[in-house]
Structures are given as C-alpha cells and as structure tokens.
C-alpha cells in the first residue's frame, strides 16, 4: 500500500476527493457571488438559500409523488412528472434563476440607490424567509436523494478507486466554472457586462439595456447556485439548512480570494476545498475552522485578498 507522510494512500486520496468536491461547491457559489457583486454591488446573502432551493427542486423532480402526496393525499401522480436527475440539472437552475429574476425585478431593484449594506440586510431577510418556509414545508431532517444509475459505483483511476459521482461533480463544476469564465471574458455579452460593471451610465448611453443586464446577471448568478444545489443533492441530504451552513464559509472564501477576478474565485474555491480535505487527514479537529484560519492569515498578510485589488 502506498503511504504518504505516514498516511495511507487511500485515506489521503479519499479525503482529497471529498475536499475537491467541497471546493467545487465553494468555487461555484463564490463565482456566483462575485458575478452578482460586480454588477449589483450587493452581497447576496440569499445565495445559500437559493442553493438549497436548487437541491429541493431536483428532489421534487425526482420523487414528485412524495411531496404532491403531502399536499393532497391520494392524488395519482403521472410517471412523466418524475423527470429524474439529468433534466433536473438543467430545469432546476432555470426555475430558480427565474425566481431570482422575479426577486431582482420586484425587490432588490429598489435598493440600488441606497447604501450597499442594505442589500446585505435585505438578502439576509430573504434567506430567512426561504429557509423558514422550507423548514415548515419539509421539516428539518434531510430527504435522501439516490445517485443516478449511470453515476453509481466506483471508477478506477489507477492509483485509487473514486466513486463515479464524486468525479462527475468535480468535472461538472469545473466545466461550469470555465463556461462562466468564457462567457464573461471572451464573448461580446461578457464584454458589455464588464463594461457595465465599470461604468453603467456610459454603457447605457451606447444603447445597451443595462437594467435588463443587471436582472439577467442576478438570475445567472442564482442559477449557478441552483446548479451547485442539484449537484449537491445526492451527496448531502437535501435539507432546509444545507445552504446556510455553506454560505458563511463561502463568504470567507470570497474574503480570501477577493472578488475582483473570475479565475481567482475558481482557483480559491477549489484550493480551499483541497486545504480542508488535507486538514481532515492530518488534524481533523481543525477541519471545520481551517478556512477561517486561512482567512485570518490572508487578512494579516494581504488584506485585499489573494486576487483582489486594494480597496
């Protein structure tokens, strides 16, 4: 058996792969936060709640008879409603994104003239409402979500066996991050978006509909959170508190990386996931706090964040 620093290889690689998965979620969520912050100047505290909504949407699409039965017992549910994992991966982010669009159009829009702190307070309130309602509807305990058939079982990577689903999460999240990066940095839409971040008035003067762009940016960031939620559903049990546990850690990730750079968010997210995984191997007591400790160190050494410009 391979042993690295006195730690058996399978344990090390197992925790590393778990760390990578957490890192994938950190990357997707902090990316969404950064994109929204760039356009709206708002820290979206509801991001965790919307991540949770994505997971619940996926769960509803997997087993519609369970929750429709809760609403009206004895209802016969047609089989086609249970669309399963793969369509949910697309439909859930679209639905939650549409919900985000609605939130931006009706509520968040009213805050742009105010101090940015009000945005944080407002989205915190929205998170409380969404999570409270979810707890009322589904209880605090988790709903199981089985791994789709095609992704169950392990895959042999040569040096270790990795559950197929974990590999899929890392690949899918990295793919989605790169896609987002590509759209923002390499397309015309992204160029307009970046220009509007710098100077919305000027971009508007060129005939670009900036308010619509802001709405769509919020919807897009939210859809990223929901996509992460669907990916997370089979790994963590689907429960109303899954988002709030994540979001505060993601805030620390954002502080560490700085919100200035898209690629920076992605790298920081994955990197911190790996750091967390390694801590679980070498000093498990600190695994819950290690990201915050890293944040403290970064604040002391480089207050603007690893990829941030000085504020």
């Amino acid at each position: 058996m391979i042993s690295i620093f006195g730690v058996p290889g399978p344990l090390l690689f197992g925790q590393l792969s778990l760390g990578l998965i957490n890192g994938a979620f950190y990357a997707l969520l902090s990316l969404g936060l950064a994109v929204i912050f760039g356009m709206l100047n708002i820290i979206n505290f509801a991001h965790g709640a919307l991540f949770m909504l994505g997971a619940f949407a996926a769960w509803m699409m997997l087993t519609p008879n369970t929750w429709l039965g809760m609403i009206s017992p004895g209802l016969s549910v047609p089989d086609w409603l249970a669309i399963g994992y793969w369509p949910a991966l697309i439909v859930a982010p679209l639905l939650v994104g549409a919900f985000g669009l609605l939130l931006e159009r009706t509520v968040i829009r009213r805050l742009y003239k105010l101090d940015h702190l009000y945005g944080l307070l407002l989205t915190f309130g929205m998170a409380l409402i969404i999570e409270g309602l979810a707890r009322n509807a589904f209880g605090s305990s988790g709903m199981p979500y089985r791994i789709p058939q095609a992704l169950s079982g392990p895959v042999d990577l040569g040096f270790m066996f990795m559950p197929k689903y974990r590999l899929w999460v890392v690949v899918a999240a990295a793919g989605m991050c790169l896609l987002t990066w590509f759209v923002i940095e390499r397309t015309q839409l992204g160029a307009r978006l970046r220009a509007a971040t710098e100077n919305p008035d000027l971009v508007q003067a060129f005939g670009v509909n900036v308010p619509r762009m802001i709405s769509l940016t919020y919807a897009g960031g939210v859809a990223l959170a929901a996509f992460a939620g669907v990916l997370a559903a089979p790994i963590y049990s689907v429960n109303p508190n899954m988002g709030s546990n994540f979001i505060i850690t993601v805030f620390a990730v954002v502080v560490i990386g700085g919100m200035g750079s898209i690629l920076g968010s992605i790298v920081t997210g994955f990197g911190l996931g790996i750091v967390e995984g390694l801590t679980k191997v070498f000093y498990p007591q600190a695994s819950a706090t290690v990201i915050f400790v890293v944040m403290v160190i970064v604040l002391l050494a480089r207050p603007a964040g690893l990829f941030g410009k000085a504020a």
Partner: protein
Amino acid sequence: MGVTTVLPRTTAARPFSVFGFSSAQAVAFLLLLAAIVLAPFGIYPVFLMKVLCFALFACAFNLLIGFVGLLSFGHAAYFGMGSYVTAWTAKTWGLTPEIAILLGGLTGGLLGCVFGALAIRRQGLYFAMITLALAQMNYFFCLQAPFTGGEDGIQQVPRGNLFGLISLRSDMAMYVVVAVVFLVFFLLIHRVVHSPFGQVLKAIRENEPRATSLGYRTDDYKLIAFVLSTFIAGIAGGTKALVFGIATLTDVNYAMSGEVVLMNLLGGMGTIFGPVIGAGIIQWTENALAGAGAWVTVTQGVIFVACVLMFRRGVVGEIAALIKRPL
C-alpha cells in the same frame, strides 16, 4: 460607508441638556425608567429580564452601526462567549454573579479586540463578511471545545449571591440586578456617544478620509469602539446566562447575530432608544410565536425585508422624524 443618517441635524446650541439628553430624550428616558420600575408588577419578570438583556446587547451593537457606521454581522460571538464564560465561572469556580458577569464582559472585549483588529483591515461589505466568518469560526470552536458542553451547553448555572451577600434566587431580586446593569451600560453608551470621543466616531461615520486628514487615527478609534461594544455585548450575554441558568450554542450562532441586527433595524439604527424598542418588539413576537416553529424565522425575515424596503428609519427613527427631534 455607513448607514445614512436619518436624524435631523440640529446645528443650533441646545438650550436644555441633562447628562447629554435633550428635552425630548430626557422625557423618553424618564418613560423608559418608569417602564422598567413598573413593568415587573404587571409582566412576568423573567421575560422582562430577557428583554433587558437583549436590549443591552442591541444597544452595544448600535454603538457600532449607528455611531461609527460599522456593520458587524458576528456580534453573537461576543454575546455568546460572554454567556459561556459567566456560566462556566459561576458554576465551576462558584464566583459571585457580579464577578462572573464582569469576566463575561472582559471575554467579549478580549475576543472583540482580536476579531476587531482583523476586521477593520477591510471596509464596508467586507467588514460585515469578515466579522460573520470570524463569528462562525468561534461557533465551530464552541461546538468542539470541552468547556462549553457541546450540544447540551452549560446547564443549571446558579445565580449565586450578589457580592456574596444577597441571594438572587428570587426573580425580583435578579430583576433589580439586571435593571441596574442595563441602566448603567445604557447610560455609559449614551455618555460615550456624546463625548468628544463620540464626536470623532460620528466624523468617521460621515466621512472617514476627512477624519483621517484632520489627524485622527481612524483605525484606533474604530477598534476602541469595537472593543467597547463587544465588552458590553459580553456583559449582556453573561447577564442572560445567569437569568436563565443556561448557556448554549444558540447564543453564538449566526442566527443570533442576525437577530441583533434586526432589533436595531426595526427599532431605529443610530437612535438612542431604538435598540431597546426593537429588542422589546422582537422578543415579544418570539414569545407570541413560540409554538409555531419555523414561522418565527419567516416572520423575522419578513420584518427584515419590510424594514429595508420601506421603513429604514425604524420605529423610534420615525417618531423622531415626526416630532422633529432626535431620540
């Protein structure tokens, strides 16, 4: 940065002033005093003590958000650690209540000194996120540390004898202590805010670069205000631990940090009496909805959204605007 000031500025010299209170504030303070004296004869004292503890916590928070413009989203850390240390020292070492509470406050202040020094390295939204993340780190620490009792918390904490002499077992005796603690620190905050030091804090809130250019080390002022606020938050937490005889993870959780923000938002940030009114209303709704489970969370969320969208001055801020006098 900072929350826009909602109070009308009075530039003219005030004709009437007692202990820094204007006439309207003096009337409001007398009303508050009368309410504190009379309320225990009509309302369950334990509930009143809870309200007073949270009111003090909210006032400590207001010192930062209202007068320095710093949004600390992790004040539960100092409140909760104060509560843990008071409970632990009172139970394990058998310290008298006044010393236990003081130690709780010192713990809050010490923690605030460390966390504050880190957080003021960034500004605005980052400051809020950093304080929140540090509080979450503290939460995980409390979850694992042996002295906090983990999920069970520290239970059956004795109220003990004040100065080793007066038993606080009866609710009325405890109420007097809580009321005195509240009033002392309420007046202290008021005094600080209206001192030359407080004027500098307000200058930082309004325009930090200008305060710097006038020669003030703004970071030092912010840190001192932060430590003072966290010290008082620790006192409030310690007092609450003795009232209920219990210190748990609820007090260090992020939800508690959100609650104290809500009390200030609802009551009126930057007013002197707003946090007290906000704490009263929030505690009352929690009491009324106690059996309704997660509806408490939903209600708090709705109040948050409603306040931010159309009621940013808060209850006391609206009254102050109505009578055109700062409260």
